[in-house]
């Protein structure tokens, strides 16, 4: 019955522009079904899935709000080297200036006289960079492992699932701390470490999606057409698993940012760059006297994570196959 509902939007313009000769004389050589009205009836609203999805995304309130917020943060990160060209770790003023005390330092200074505003702007760069790159690493590894396990099945699947479980039984943050402690803390090692502890989430998801999708008739059809495994995985299955992956990835960026903040808070971040987590960490001893030192970066982290989660929620609504455009 729902079909009626959706069909109304898919109308055809040329269904009855010419008379249909049902009882027309039929000779074996001219088959009128090849020119039956139905065959020329294609929905007039020629919408491309991708364009339609983008439109629906923009109209979604969660995505719009999250997107706006995230754009502000991205702009801040992009402007940081122009607004605050110097090293944000250098001492520039009297320590512990409160926000508003000095117009040159709108967010005040910390106990070492470093500009908090410069720290927040430059910190956005670090947080976003680590969030995005670590997630890319996690997603890539996750897709590789999950797709292999889900598509191949059998003993390969068994082995890979054990590996995934091994990673998931160790609390991910403890694993992260261990990894960073073994390697020297730097942006590079922190990013890799976060990527390495987050991939199992994606791997499990991709494996589950692949196990369902590989049984679909269109994959069966691809096999019957003689497609190779690579083509089937990349062209046929992966695009259909992508919505679920994108939704999870948006939330993983938020998780990665939080992990980096937590590491820096514990002093395990890169000591040579300023990040929101390290700002909170260094402001923590002064929380009674100069609470803004922890509150400001804290608020920024909350807003960033909120923005990403909003986008994730909106993406779920739009891309979820059950409620989405493509049935």
């Amino acid at each position, binding site marked *: 019955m729902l079909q009626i509902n959706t069909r109304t939007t*898919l109308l055809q313009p040329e269904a009855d522009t010419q008379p249909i000769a049902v009882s027309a004389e039929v000779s074996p050589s001219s088959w009128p079904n090849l020119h039956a009205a139905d065959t020329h009836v294609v929905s007039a609203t020629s919408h491309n899935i991708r364009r339609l999805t983008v439109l629906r995304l923009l109209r979604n309130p969660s995505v719009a709000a999250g997107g706006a917020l995230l754009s502000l943060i991205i702009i801040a990160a992009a402007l940081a080297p122009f607004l605050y060209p110097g090293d944000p770790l250098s001492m520039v003023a009297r320590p512990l200036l409160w926000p508003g005390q000095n117009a040159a330092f709108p967010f005040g200074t910390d106990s070492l006289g470093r500009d908090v505003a410069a720290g927040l702007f430059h910190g956005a760069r670090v947080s976003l960079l680590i969030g995005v790159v670590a997630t890319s690493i996690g997603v890539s590894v996750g897709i590789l492992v999950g797709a292999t396990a889900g598509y191949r099945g059998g003993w390969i699947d068994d082995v890979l699932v054990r590996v995934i479980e091994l990673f998931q039984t160790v609390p991910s943050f403890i694993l992260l701390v261990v990894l960073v402690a073994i390697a020297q803390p730097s942006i590079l090692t922190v990013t890799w470490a976060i990527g390495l502890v987050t991939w199992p989430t994606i791997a499990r998801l991709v494996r589950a999606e692949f196990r369902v999708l590989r049984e679909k008739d269109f994959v069966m059809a691809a096999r019957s057409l003689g497609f190779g495994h690579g083509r089937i995985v990349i062209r046929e299955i992966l695009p259909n698993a992508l919505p679920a992956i994108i939704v999870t990835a948006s939330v993983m960026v938020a998780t990665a940012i939080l992990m980096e903040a937590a590491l820096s808070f514990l002093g395990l971040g890169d000591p040579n760059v300023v990040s929101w987590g390290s700002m909170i960490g260094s402001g923590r001893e002064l929380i009674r006297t100069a609470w803004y030192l922890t509150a400001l970066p804290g608020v920024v982290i909350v807003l960033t994570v909120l923005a990403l989660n909003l986008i994730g929620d909106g993406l779920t609504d739009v891309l979820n196959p059950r409620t989405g455009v493509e049935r």
Partner: protein
Amino acid sequence: MATLLDIQGLTISFPNATPVKDLSFQVAEAETLAIVGESGSGKSLTALALMRLLPKTADITDGSIRFAGEDLVNIPEPAMRERRGRDIAMIFQEPMTSLNPVLTIGRQIVEVLRLHRGLTRAQARREARDLLDLVRIPDPDRCLDDYPHRLSGGMRQRVMIAIAVACRPKLLIADEPTTALDVTIQAQVLELLDRLRRELSLALLLITHDLGVVGQWADRVVVMYAGRKVEEAPPEPLFNDPLHPYTQGLLAASPRLHDDLHYRDSRLSEIPGSISSAVKEKGCPFVPRCPQRRDVCRTVFPDTTMAGLGRSVACHAVTPTIATGPSLHDAAVRL
């Protein structure tokens, strides 16, 4: 026979579509009325409307559904809930999804009996066993303690029927009851439904797309196309002398009715196009596919005209005086 269900001018609307328009028909006590149509004809939606179980976005915007003299369109929901299951029951196409997988069969029947007939647990269990016996389930005692997934499709449909008739309803709506079943099982289930109709004097509203089922089991047939009733007739005249061009096309296109056709010598007759072309039509929804269309068909939906005993048709091309379309065989063999 007394009229049990009288539907007049039923119109069902979604915010942006009207899938059932101005539908009228009657069901007498203990008769089998079949509604036949393709997907998108509005037949299942009509069934849901009778139960007042339409999806939230759909609404009955016009018309009346009089059941035993009472208009079901306007009675409050609690009163309707009481009618459901007790006066009107329904079975669905897919018996697996309509049974709760985590409860035993016995539990599900007992629940209905206690709710509607106020039986004690022991009484209800005894009654449940009798019901399973009634629908000819072998070894009903064991079946009571089984879970739905342990039964075959045919057996599950029998259980659904047992639940549906548990409260001795006056009307049983069967929405494609055999579509998901194999032919040999299909015949068993239809035979069972017909036996129950006689023994419990049920009226049966059989909703189907299968013309063979209709011809074999229905007393009267309503043919629907894109939300409209286009023809109504007893099965024999309908099959021997269909009046509406859609009915004619449908019968002609059915290989089942033309035993001797083989692809090496002849083509099947076909209706061009598909039902989706009907949605925007102001007049008759069949216009884009109709071989007999006229100008008036595009703008005005034809009135339903009587065409003999128990027969009516809604078509501009059929006038009451010359209410004889080409016969089935004429329509079939256009080679």
